[in-house]
C-alpha cells in the first residue's frame, strides 16, 4: 500500500513539474522570446488560462504527500523552512506578475510585472532544482526525526550541510536548463512567426547546455551517492529510465531541427518525467534519505495508518479521473495558437 502511495505522489510530482514547468520555463525566456511589450503580452497570454490550474498540482501534490506520509511532511517542510517560505513568496509575486500585468495599459506597469514574472520564474526553477538536490544528497536527520538546514554553510556536501552547496546548486542549474528548454518548446507550440522562431532557437542552443549539465549531474550523483544504483542492479528494468533520458534528449534535438514543436514538447516532457523518475527509482524505499542512513525516512516509517491509506486509494482514483476530465476540457477550450489581437 505504501508503495502505491509512493508511486502516486511521484506521479503527481511529475505532473506538476511537466505542467507548471512549462509556464515557469516560459518565464525564464520571457525577455528573450518577447522583445517588446506586445510580444511579451503574447507570452503571457500563451500561459494565461492554464498556469493557475498547473500550479494547483503543487497544492494537490503537497496535500497528498501530507496525507500519505505525514512524518515526511513534518520533517521535510520544517527542515527546509526558509527556502520553502521563500518559494511561497516567489509563487505569490510571480502570480501577481502574470495576472496584474494586463490590468493597466501603462508601459511602466507592464515592464515592472514582466521583470517580476521573469525573475521569480528563474529563481523558482533554481530553488526547485536545489530542493530535489537536497533530497538526493540526503539531509541531517537525527534521532528526533527532525532536522533544520540553514540556507548555506560551507557549500560542501558533508558535515553541516546547507540547502545550497555545490551539488544542489548544480541541481538548480539542471532544473533551470530543463525548464528553459521545456518552456521554449511550449511557447514555440503556442506562437507564430518571430516568436516561434526565437523559442525554437532557445531550444536549439539551450539543448547543448542541458546535455552538459545532465551529464555533470549524473556524474556528481554517482560519485556522491553510489547507493542510488542499488535498485537498478536489483531490478534491471530500471535501466530503461536512463535510456529514456538519453532518447528524449535526442528527440528534443531531432524534432527541434524538424520544426515539429508538438513532438519536441512531448520529448521535453518525457525528459522531465524520466529525470524525476530516475531519482525516485533510485531513492525507493527512502522518501527522505538522511546523511546518516540509520535515520532515513522511508515509506515504512513515514506513512500514515493503513486504514486511512486504503480509503484514500478509493477516493483518489475517483478524484483524479474526474480531474483529468476537467483538464482535457480546459485545454481543449483554449487549444490553438494565441492570436495577436487578443485582448
Amino acid at each position, binding site marked *: 500500500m505504501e508503495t502505491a502511495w509512493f508511486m502516486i505522489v511521484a506521479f503527481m510530482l511529475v505532473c506538476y513539474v511537466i505542467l507548471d514547468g512549462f509556464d515557469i520555463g516560459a518565464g525564464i525566456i520571457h525577455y528573450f522570446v518577447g522583445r517588446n511589450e506586445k510580444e511579451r503580452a503574447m507570452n503571457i497570454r500563451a500561459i494565461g488560462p492554464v498556469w*493557475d490550474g498547473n500550479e494547483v498540482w503543487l497544492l*494537490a*501534490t503537497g496535500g497528498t504527500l*501530507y496525507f500519505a506520509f505525514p512524518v515526511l511532511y513534518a520533517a521535510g517542510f520544517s527542515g527546509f523552512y526558509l527556502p520553502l517560505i521563500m518559494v511561497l513568496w516567489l509563487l505569490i509575486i510571480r502570480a501577481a506578475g502574470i495576472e496584474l500585468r494586463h490590468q493597466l495599459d501603462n508601459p511602466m506597469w507592464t515592464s515592472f510585472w514582466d521583470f517580476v514574472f521573469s525573475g521569480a520564474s528563474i529563481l523558482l526553477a533554481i530553488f526547485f532544482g536545489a530542493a530535489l538536490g537536497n533530497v538526493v544528497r540526503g539531509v541531517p536527520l537525527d534521532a528526533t526525526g527532525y532536522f533544520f538546514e540553514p540556507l548555506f554553510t560551507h557549500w560542501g556536501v558533508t558535515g553541516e550541510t546547507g540547502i545550497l552547496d555545490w551539488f544542489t546548486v548544480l541541481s538548480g542549474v539542471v532544473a533551470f536548463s530543463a525548464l528553459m528548454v521545456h518552456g521554449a518548446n511550449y511557447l514555440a507550440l503556442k506562437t507564430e512567426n518571430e516568436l516561434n522562431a526565437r523559442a525554437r532557437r532557445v531550444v536549439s542552443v539551450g539543448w547543448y547546455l542541458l546535455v552538459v549539465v545532465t551529464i555533470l549531474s549524473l556524474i556528481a550523483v554517482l560519485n556522491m551517492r553510489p547507493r542510488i544504483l542499488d535498485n537498478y542492479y536489483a531490478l534491471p528494468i530500471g535501466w530503461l529510465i536512463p535510456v529514456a533520458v538519453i532518447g528524449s534528449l535526442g528527440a528534443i534535438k531531432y524534432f527541434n531541427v524538424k520544426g515539429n514543436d508538438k513532438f519536441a514538447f512531448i520529448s521535453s516532457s518525457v525528459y522531465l518525467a524520466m529525470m524525476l523518475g530516475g531519482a525516485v527509482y533510485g531513492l525507493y524505499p527512502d522518501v527522505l534519505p538522511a546523511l546518516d542512513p540509520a535515520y532515513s525516512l522511508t515509506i515504512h516509517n513515514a506513512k500514515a495508518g493503513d486504514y486511512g491509506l486504503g480509503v*484514500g486509494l478509493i477516493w483518489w482514483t475517483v478524484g483524479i479521473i474526474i480531474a483529468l476530465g476537467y483538464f482535457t476540457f480546459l485545454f481543449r477550450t483554449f487549444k490553438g495558437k494565441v492570436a495577436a489581437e487578443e485582448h
Partner: protein
Amino acid sequence: MVSERTGAVTVVLRKFFLWRISPMEANTLDRIQFAFTLTYHYLFPQLTMGLAPLIVVFKTLAIWKKDERWNETARFWGKILGITFLFGVVTGIPMEFQFGTNWAAFSRYAGGVIGQTLAMEGTFAFFLESSFIGIFLFGEKRLGQRLHWISAALLFVGTWISGWFIIATNAWMQHPVGYEVAADGSVQLTSFWALVLNKWAIYQYLHNMGGAVVTGSFAVAALGAFYVLSRKQVEYGKLFLKSGVIAACLASIWMLFPSGDLQGRMVAEHQPVTLAAMEGLFDTTQGAPLVLIGQPDMEKQRLDNAIHIPKMLSFITYQRWEAQVRGLNEFPKDQHPDNIPLLYYSFHMMVGLGTIFIAIMVLSVFWLWRGWLFSSNWLMWIIMLSFPLPFIANTVGWMTAELGRQPWLVYGLFRTEHGHSPMVSSGNVLFTLLGFFGMYTVLSLLYIFLLLRRIEHGAGELKLIEPGLDSIPDTPTETY
C-alpha cells in the same frame, strides 16, 4: 537631576518597551504567523464563496428572463471574483505549507487524520475550481450561454466543496472523531465517514457558508448603493441593490437562526468551558443572564460594567429560564482558553454585528418592497458604508472558534504548546513573519487598486473578453 517621579516613569517605560522587544518564543511567533496569514487569507475566500452562488443566480436570471443586463451583472461580478480568487489562491498556498513548516509536531501527530481532508480538498475542489474559473472568465463566447451557466455552477460547487473540506479539518480539531491512538503516539483514522460527516462540521459549515454569503451579498448591495448614490451606472446600481439586499437579508437571518443557534449548542455541549469564556460567565449560575456589553476583568474574576438580559443565556442554551450554566470557576485553570478577554470580545462583536446586519437588511427589504429604497439616500449610505462589516464579523467569528479551542490544537487531545516545529528557531520564524507582513501589505495595495479600477469602470460597457473576436459586431445595430 532625575526626580523620583521621572524615575518612576522611566521604569514604567522601560518595562513597557522591554515587554515589546523581548524575544518571543517560537511557539508564540508560530501562532501569530498562522493567525495573521490565515486571517488575511480568509478575507478573499469568504468573498469568492459568497459571490459564486450569487453569480449563478445572475446567470440564471439572464437566461431565464432573457435580460442581457443580468448577464452583464454576472460578468462584472465574475471579474471581481476572478481577481479575488487569485488573491485567495496565492495567500492559500502558505496555509497548506505552514502545517509542515511551522507545525511539524502537530502534523506528525495528526497528519494521519487531517491529511485525509486536506488531500481531498486538493483532489476534489482545487482542480474543479481552477479549471472552471478560467473557463468561466474567458470561455463565454467559445462555449455559448448554456455551457457558460454550467461553468458558473461548477465554479460555485468547487468553491463550496473546498470550504467543506477545510471546515471538516477544523471541525475534527474542535471535536475529534473517528480516530485511534497508534503505537507511536500519533492519531490515525479509523472511520472515514465519521471524519467527513462529523456533526460539528455540518453545523460549522452551515454557519460559515452563510457568513460567506453575507459578505458577498453585502458587497453587491453596497456597490449598488454607491452606483445609485453617485449617479453613475444607476441602472446596474439598482439591480445590484435589489439582488444584494434580498440575498443579504436571507443570509443574515440564517446566521442567527438556525445556523448560529445550532453551532452555539454544539459549543455548549462539547466545549462548555469555551461557552463560559465566550459569555464572560465566571461563576456557575442558575438562570444565567445574557451579557450584551461589559469588560472581563481577569484579575478580579468578574465582568465590569455589564449590561445584560436576565436569564436569557440559560434559555437560549438549554431552552429553560432557570437552567444552570457552568461558569469558568468549575473548570481547572489549565483547561481555560488562554486569552479569555479576546475570545469574549470576538464573540460579542460577531453577535453584535450579526444583529446589526439583520436590522439593516430587514429594513432595506421592506423599503425595497414599498418602493422607497432607491430614493432613500440615508439608507443607501448605510448600506454602502456597511460593506466592511461582514469581513470583520467573519474574522471575529473565526477568532471565536480558534481562540475558543485553546489551549488545545486538537480539543482535549493535543495542546497548542506542543505543536510547533521543534527545530525552527524563533529568529527564523520572526524573519518570515516580518516578510509576510511586507508581502501582504503590498498585496493589499494592489488588490484595492485593482478593485477600485473595476468599480470605476463599472458594469454595462464590459465587452466579452475573447481572443480576436472583439472586432466582430454582435448585432446588426452595432454594425451600422
